[in-house]
């Protein structure tokens, strides 16, 4: 385990966060709201790796963008707040103006986007892309000093020195991924949000990247929020895991509890249903398809596909209770 969990001061908390997409249909022009993130309240402890799991279309990427404060139409925050507790002050990233937001970015929170294999500017050397970031976010920017920081940071992360002078297309996918991670952590920020950091990578390279993330967390003592659908990745590096389904958090807790003793049927399905080398037992799949986020089903959103569905599940939404220390779940079975 990385840090002992007793140091419980939080670095990030969201209260009742609702982030919807406003989508116009062509025909009648009637606006439809896609409830991508629907009333989510989570807390992230300082110095931990927090995993957010869920299938594609469950809204975890939207949550990642909202946490970082990257909200552009058609996405809009309908309700709730996102509070960053740094040193002495607490900032709600959703309320700050553009300039303040720019200061917060890369100093308090930085972001590693999905498919980071092609987010580097193809016609700009890696070094210049680093310099751009440092110049924008560091108060007293000074070229030589910045160059020194880059080289030190690159060495620390075990990347070869000649990476800085090459262009993105000269590097392999895995190497570009590591450069993006280095880019996000060059200014020692408090929280790093990584959206699907290893999805497009091979198994061996993925392991290298995950171990790099753990090394960074230990060295910079920062907090990392990793978002991925791969439960194996969460089991390997996360301290705590939150499982999302159709825009809501259905379970959240320490990784041993969530994997060892999952309370919510969907979490249990996510962990147990997937095939694993050495286990030939027949795996079933839940019927139906992920629910529409435009008109989410009434009551518990998993009810149309849940094997333990009860009458109450179809009518009222289950509460979100703490069943065990720091282990939350929402399901009527827990009643």
């Amino acid at each position: 385990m990385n840090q002992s969990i007793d140091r419980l001061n939080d670095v990030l908390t969201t209260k009742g966060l609702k982030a919807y997409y406003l989508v116009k249909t062509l025909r009648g022009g009637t606006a439809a709201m896609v409830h991508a993130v629907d009333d989510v309240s989570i807390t992230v402890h300082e110095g931990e790796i927090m995993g957010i799991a869920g299938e594609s279309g469950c809204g975890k990427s939207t949550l990642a963008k909202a946490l970082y404060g990257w909200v552009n139409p058609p996405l809009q925050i309908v309700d709730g707040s996102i509070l960053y507790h740094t040193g002495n002050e607490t900032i709600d990233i959703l309320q700050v103006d553009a300039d303040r937001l720019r200061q917060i970015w890369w100093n308090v929170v930085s972001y590693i986007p999905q498919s980071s294999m092609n987010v580097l500017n193809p016609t700009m050397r890696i070094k210049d892309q680093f310099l751009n970031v440092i110049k924008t976010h560091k108060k007293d920017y000074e070229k030589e000093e910045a160059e020194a920081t880059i080289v030190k940071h690159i060495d620390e992360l075990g990347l070869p020195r000649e990476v800085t002078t090459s262009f993105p297309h000269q590097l392999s996918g895995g190497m570009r991924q590591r450069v993006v991670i280095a880019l996000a952590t060059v200014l020692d920020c408090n929280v790093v949000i990584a959206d699907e950091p290893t999805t497009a990578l091979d198994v061996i390279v993925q392991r290298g990247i995950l171990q790099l993330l753990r090394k960074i967390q230990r060295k910079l003592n920062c907090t990392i929020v990793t978002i991925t659908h791969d439960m194996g990745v969460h089991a390997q590096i996360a301290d705590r895991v939150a499982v999302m389904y159709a825009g809501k958090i259905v379970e959240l807790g320490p990784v041993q509890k969530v994997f060892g003793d999952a309370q919510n049927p969907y979490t249990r399905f996510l962990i147990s249903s997937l095939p694993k080398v050495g286990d030939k037992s027949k795996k079933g799949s839940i019927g139906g398809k992920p629910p529409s986020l435009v008109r989410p089903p009434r009551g518990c959103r998993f009810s149309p596909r849940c094997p333990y569905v009860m009458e109450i599940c179809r009518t009222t939404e289950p509460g979100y209770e703490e069943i065990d220390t720091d282990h939350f779940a929402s399901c009527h079975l827990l009643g």
Partner: protein
Amino acid sequence: MRVIREYVIPRIITYVAVIFIGITVSFVLPRLTPLDPVILAINRFSEYGQYYDPESLELMIESMKELYGLKGSLLEQYVNFLRRAITGDFGPSLAYFPIPATDLVSRALPWTISLLSLSTIVSWLVGNFIGGVAGYFGGRRWAKALSVFATVVYPTPYYIMALLLMAVLTYVIPIFPTYGATSLDPAFTLEFIADYLYHATLPSLSLVVVGYGWWFLSMRNIVSHTKQEEYVEYGQIMGLPKRTILLKYVIRNSLLPQITGLSVALGGIFSGSMITEAVFSYPGLGYVLLTSVTNGDFNLMMAIVTYSIIAVSSATVLLDLLYPLIDPRIRYK
């Protein structure tokens, strides 16, 4: 060096092939048509009431055939045409007899080249830059206004723009000369340059205005796609200032296809400049072509066609070779 071997040599081979095919096509096509240029020329003369007795007519036809290089079979004509063409000899010009066609062309070429390069560079830079900015700030009103202007200007053919400019700027507000280049002989004196510019403004203006429309619209189109690229969004996520995003991310990556666009458009721009010269009687290749056409000067026409093909394909190959210096991806390969 691998890059030279892999990138340069194929370009040179296509360059030679294009010129060869171009010249062959321009040589063979007119000869395929059922008409005989000599008979055409004779008819034109006889139109002015000139009467020739049969043998002198026969003699004239013989010598005309010699002058036009129409002796012998198609293949023989072709072979000795090539042999002479390589040395730059296209036979004498009929309209300005006995001056060799090549001299006329070499005198006119620099005018065309200067007019062409001047206006192409200006319209390329202005069109691309404004197009890029308008593409990036799509929604703004001034961007929409610029787009409408470009949409109106772009499809207008060169000579129509030339006529419009001529009407407005020489007739309605007579501040520019209606025709001709500079009356002084070419020298690098300030006075000559001022006079040259004074005369070249209108022709190049019509080229620039139409050219601007093309580059503006194509750049705005490319930028509207580039600004949705992932690396641009990541630049914004990193909170880089708008200016850096616009210049170093969007415009820099959108300019690359515009360079290849330039080499493709060169053929068209070249023809466009020729028409403008004809309308403004600017002493470039276009004007010489106009006179050669009105007098049915076959040799001069062949010389102009050959030189234009060489000029355009050389510029295209030059651009292709310059391209790797600009786009790092090619250079690495």
